[in-house]
């Protein structure tokens, strides 16, 4: 069949082809529209009636994460959870430069410190829940060698020689938690404890300051003044081992001079 034949064929069946094309076109176009309409109808959630005032807690809740996002989500309560103390991040004991605090920061640091003590020199209360029975659990975090970081903080370490029974002197600040009864005896106290003495005195600018507190029960200077200890009172030269070589204690704080006390009257 040559081109004549083809033209002749289309001429001959023009009417029929037009009807077929029209039919296909209508089907395709309507198919597109039907398809679009059906997709929209399938993904739309069922109609819901929302309350006019949504419950207040709903606004404070974070959106639920997708499963795949969970490991990367930042708000998880247990994000820093570790089952063994060894796995906790450790403090880098490398000497780091101290950062000078602003006056406000310093005041905040000292206020936080004072709130745990009845007076300067009193054993601090415990700001967290404790194991009521075992002192060993205290030492896991507060021992002299412990240097882990928990929730961004390094636990304080013993400032005094090791005594076995920690809770003899250090009691929880909020000891009974949920066992605390609403009706209970609460009396205000007018006790004004000895305040933080501030920096020690210097004979002249650049002279080593004297120790502005008692030494007894604070024999371990590094507990508060060592590297990586919270700012404010950190030593700039922790590598010097013999602190009292340069920093003289103040007899007034050790209150030695006014109290008569003679040796025992029975020979040992």
């Amino acid at each position, binding site marked *: 069949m040559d081109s004549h034949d083809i033209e002749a064929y289309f001429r001959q069946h023009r009417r029929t082809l037009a009807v077929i094309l029209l039919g296909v076109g209508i089907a395709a176009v309507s198919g597109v529209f039907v398809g679009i309409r059906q997709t929209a109808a399938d993904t739309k959630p069922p109609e819901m009636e929302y309350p006019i005032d949504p419950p207040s807690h709903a606004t404070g809740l974070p959106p639920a994460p997708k499963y795949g996002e969970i490991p990367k989500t930042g708000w998880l309560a247990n994000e820093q959870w570790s089952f063994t103390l060894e796995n906790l991040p450790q403090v880098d004991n490398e000497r780091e430069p101290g950062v000078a605090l602003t006056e406000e920061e310093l005041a905040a640091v000292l206020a936080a410190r004072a709130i745990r003590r*009845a*007076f*300067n*020199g*009193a*054993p601090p*209360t415990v700001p967290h829940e404790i194991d*009521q*029975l075992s*002192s060993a659990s205290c030492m896991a975090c507060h021992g002299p060698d412990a240097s882990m970081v928990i929730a961004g903080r390094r636990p304080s370490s013993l400032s005094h020689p*090791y*005594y*076995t*029974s920690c*809770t*003899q*002197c*250090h*009691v*929880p*600040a*909020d*000891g009974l938690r949920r*066992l*605390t*009864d609403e009706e*209970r*005896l*609460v*009396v*205000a*106290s*007018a*006790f004004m*404890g*000895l305040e933080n*003495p*501030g*920096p*020690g*005195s*210097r*004979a*002249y*600018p650049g*002279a080593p300051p*004297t120790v*502005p507190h008692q030494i*007894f*029960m604070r024999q371990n200077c590094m507990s508060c003044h060592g590297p990586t200890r919270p700012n404010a009172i950190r030593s700039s030269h922790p590598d010097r081992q013999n602190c009292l070589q340069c920093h003289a204690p103040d007899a*007034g704080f050790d*209150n030695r001079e*006014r*109290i*008569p*006390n*003679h040796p*025992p*009257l*029975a020979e040992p």
Partner: protein
Amino acid sequence: MSTLERRTFLKTSAMAAATAAVSQRAGGAAAAPASDGIHWDKAPCRFCGTGCHVKVGVRDGKVVAIAGHPDAEVNKGLLCVKGYHVGGILYGEDRLKHPMLRRNGVLERISWDEAIDIAARKIMEAPERFAIYGSGQWTIPEGYAAQKLIKGGLSNNHIEPNARLCMASAVTGFISTYGVDEPAGCYDDLDACDVLILWGNNMSEMHPVLFSRFYDRKSRGEKITLIDLGTRRTRTTEFADHYMEFRPQSDLAIANCIAQQLIERDAWDKEFVEKHCAFRADADLTKPDLMGVAIDFENYKQRVAEYTPEKVSEISGLPVEQLRLLGDLFADPKVKITSTWCMGMNQHTRATAINRLVHGIHLLSGKFGSPGNAPTSLTGQPSACGTAREVGTLCHALPGGRLVAKPEHREQCEKHWNLPAGRINATPGHHTVLMWEKFCTPTAEGGDIRTILVQVTNPGQSLPNLHKLFRAKKGLDDKFLIVSDVYPTATTELADLVLPAALWVEKNGVFGNSERRTQQWFKQVEPPGEAREDVWMTIAIARRLYDLGHPGMKDKDGNFIFRFTDDAGNEVPVWEYDRFHEINVDRALYDDYRPLTFLKHKHLAPYDVLKEHTGLRWPVVEQSDGSFRETRFRFSEFDDPFVKKGNGIEFYHSTTNDGRAQIWFCPYEAHPEEPDEEFPFWLCTGRVLEHWHTGTMTMRVPQLRGAVPNNYVEIHPDDAREAGIGNGDKVVLATRRGELELSAWINGRGRPPRGSLFVPFFDQIRQINLLTLDAHCPISKEPDYKKCAARIRKA
């Protein structure tokens, strides 16, 4: 250094100093050290009987700091949390500052003159129906003045200390064993012993400094063994090498089992017993008395024979192996054993018996009289020994270990006080439980106590069975309650007259601790408002009685019985408060009391020697060179100067007058209120580390209150589950005497076994003593706060 160099150096230093001064003034920050302006002085701690010495820092008339006294032999610089916060007890904002009289049900402020007059007139109306109720917190001079007023002045023996509720049984134990009160050993034993046995004694909470003194030896590498004989797990248990959990009351059987094993194994110390001991038992078990009758060794052996480990295991619940371990330790002559106890043995319906038995096993095994070998009772109050026991502020006692029933003892006191013969009444007064029972009984029904003066204690919370022994006073219009205290308490709630008192370092004082150590301190701050010294109140009331014409307020020569003179010999009217401080009345009373201590060889140190020390242990004996020497180990020749040379050990106040101590046999007997179907639990009460006694002082220290703000009931998890009780749930606890709503603490600080409950007694709002039992030891009259039957349900 050459002259020139030296001059230059001086100039340079001067310049440097000047520069420093200028820079300080300019900068303003580098102020003078804050130690300036603080005055430090010594005082014994106000709380328990351990007798730690603290240093008190005072600035501008207020206590601002406390430190452990590093030179004090008792605590060596260490304190417990109460000790560090003892300064805070002075400054609760509800301190009582003015005398108050109840009019139409309301306490109204009155003057001191009125208050003293009212008190004296009430006494004057019926002196024989007046009683004084004090405590082991009385200072020695306070107790001595009260003692002299009532026994020497009013010829009345109704004086008791709350120590009756606390260590009366230790006294009867010591007296019936050694013939004289108070421990022979001392705290030095804790430094020397190989084994420490705690008989129902939660030492890490109740005597924490002593506990550390012993237990810290372990962290220094010493080999020591701690045995915790208890009825519930406590903080002490966590440190113990052996925890022996026995059924309440079966301590009697356990002690007998140790004796049985010593004899059966032929391991008792024959030489020690043959030379220094005798055997004794109650003549009639239904009517036990203090002295009993002598028995021979064969009789003793027969009676203890039934307490085999197998049988005692059934009674006590201890495994046979643990009982054998105790037997092994006492049988080993090389092991040094110290036993300590406190309320667990003393608050017991068979308290005298268990005290005797523990002394007995130490004597039988020869574990006595050398450092590290001692049976030592601990006291819970700072001067239970010093005032209650030594001054004898008990209804049957006179100062220095004397008894009102003994004519020669009365005569000695009358002579010493320059009183006419026969002034002191020969009949003992009412013991504590009876005194309060009589006070709470209508006069028409035989309630023969009408007026009580309460000093330095809080019976409205600390007596057992409070409905019966305290609250029943309400509505009895002819009964009059005078209360001297520092804060409003459960006792002042029913008081008719309230006297505001000076507290601790607001007054001079002398205390005596558990190891025979007498401790002195001076007043360091002023009391608040119109608060005044208890000793002044006693003297002022006596003087008012004198003015009202009570004949007993005069001595043989017509002088006032509290006559004090200054250095020039002129009488000082110390009952006038503005003249009270002209002389040291404490010292005058102490000096008057001291010679009375010589009879039983309890020689106290002179006041001037005491004030130079952090306490001294009696007998403090003058040496040939005029110096004084204290005694650590009583009855032992190497240390006690009253033991005859060559005797080794000598019990020179023996009840049998032959230098021997008594080894008692006392049987195991069931408790009068054992749990039953209706009340299936044992209820035990006690203290916690942070609070002391009824909490009136410690609840006013924010740090201590924060640690334990209220009481609770400890319960075993299985018992809780069966009763549907969850941790922190409100429960109703009931005994035959009352009920109380509390929170339940499961797996808390203390962990009672199944069938046992524990409640601390410091809480003023939820008073557990409304539920406790007033049944008491027939000999010591001390009630049992440690055991009664209870039931519990979810509220």
